[in-house]
């Protein structure tokens, strides 16, 4: 079999001494890694360029060039890095995705700007999805298994059944027989983890660091997998149009606000990385809630073209 199926040219040299099978497999991995390449250019390139060129111009006597004074200010853009990268990839990944995606699952999307989307499943269970969340119902649901996948916030009311009901999230698996519970799993959040909290019945959660059995009014997080007592109704405030956070990073709070009201909220990382504890029932519009946040942490906010901006005084 030819090794020329890959884009990597000196394949023979790289895979010297390996079996043909192994070479072919590794060649495919080599190609797949294409998508992990970072292609975005440094947003500060122009700034660095003018700083450098200005300095060599001044330095007729180049001895002074050693001190670097006109360094451009650090932009707050750091935590958006992944976002730009992620947007720039689409095309290159098609090959890799074809290995992972099978087309025959049903997918439900809760539109942003809505309050709540309810999905009824074939076994009679229901799932309430927060705006921007997605539920993937795997092929053969209820016939052979009861497996779904969740990206985002979902509240599950599961009908009792003989087959376990299983929810996969990006870093955990939650298994139940019949019960109601909430899951929050935004892979893009700051310090992302899956949170599972139980309203009734019992739920088993498998995270990468271990496994735990939860009862009603308990929650766990996939990054430590310990049991915490929790006020369920506060944690599930989003079900009734509210927002409730205990020591949550503001960046993650703003993401929820963006999805709920379908707007953009801009904030520097000095604000995004700050924790906040805030609880509001039935929030009607974004500016009301953002005003509360701004007041709580003593920053300011203003309206912008397609949303709001939070900034330091």
């Amino acid at each position, binding site marked *: 079999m030819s090794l020329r199926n890959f884009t990597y040219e000196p394949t023979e040299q790289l*895979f010297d001494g390996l079996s043909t099978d192994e070479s072919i497999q590794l060649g495919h991995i080599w190609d797949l890694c294409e998508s992990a390449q970072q292609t975005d250019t440094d947003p500060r390139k122009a700034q660095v360029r003018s700083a450098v060129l200005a300095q060599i111009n001044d330095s007729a006597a180049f001895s002074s060039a050693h001190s670097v004074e006109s360094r451009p200010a650090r932009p707050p853009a750091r935590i958006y890095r992944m976002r730009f990268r992620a*947007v720039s990839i689409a095309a290159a990944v098609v090959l890799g995705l074809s290995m992972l995606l099978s087309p025959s699952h049903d997918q439900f999307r809760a539109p942003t700007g809505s309050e709540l989307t309810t999905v009824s499943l074939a076994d009679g269970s229901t799932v309430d999805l927060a705006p921007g969340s997605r539920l993937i119902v*795997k092929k053969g649901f209820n016939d052979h298994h009861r497996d779904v996948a969740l990206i985002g916030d979902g509240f599950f009311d599961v009908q009792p059944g003989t087959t376990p009901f299983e929810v996969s999230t990006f870093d955990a698996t939650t298994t139940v027989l019949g019960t109601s519970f909430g899951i929050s799993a935004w892979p893009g959040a700051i310090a992302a983890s899956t949170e599972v909290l139980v309203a009734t019945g019992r739920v088993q959660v498998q995270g990468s660091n271990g496994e735990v059995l939860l009862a009603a009014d308990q929650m766990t997080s996939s990054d430590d997998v310990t049991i915490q007592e929790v006020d369920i109704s506060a944690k599930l405030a989003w079900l009734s149009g509210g927002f409730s956070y205990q020591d949550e990073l503001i960046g993650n709070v703003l993401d929820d606000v963006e999805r709920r009201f379908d707007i953009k909220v801009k904030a520097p990382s000095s604000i995004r990385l700050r924790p906040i504890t805030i609880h509001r029932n039935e929030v009607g519009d974004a500016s009301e809630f953002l005003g509360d946040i701004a007041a709580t942490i003593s920053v300011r906010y203003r309206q912008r073209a397609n949303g709001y901006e939070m900034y330091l005084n």
Partner: protein
Amino acid sequence: MRSIAEEQFQSWSHGLLQSDEASYAELFDASYDALHRYSMYITHDAVSASDILQDVYLKLWQVRETIDPERSLRALMYQMVRNYSLNHERQKKRHAAEAIEADHPSVGFDSVNDDEIDAALLKMRLQEWIDEMPERRKEAFMLSRFEGLSHEEIASLMDLAPKTVNNHIVLALQHIRKKLEAFKERESFYGSRPSNT
């Protein structure tokens, strides 16, 4: 930078020797992106990488009269970026203040469209798997895979035998394959799954 001919670098070397600012600016424009990426492999921080490159380019101008046009300017620049970046990392360890950021390198594809989220998820995973490899293996792999440096160039840059570079890259690919298989299995998210009954 791979696509730039060695002769082009030679002509920039000569330009630098004569303190020709136009050559210098041209060299900056042509080499910045690749060197910034390389610094990012080591520092994982775009802002630090920009600062490092600013220092490297200024240093290059300061030492311009000592440049030997018979030797590869490209190799020299990679070497400078490497030394400055490693130095930066060493100093950073002394100031643990940045720990909060270093702990969460992969944050925030929050505003990506739904259609892009699967692609973003895979890309994020690939980057994580690359990131979790030992530093030197990761560096050799990324220089080869993403910057197109030859094994010999990587070997001399990192002070390794070419055979070792080769081994690093094969081990890196094997590592990623193992992770991908586990990913497909565990997060049966996307794969169809045999029935339990």
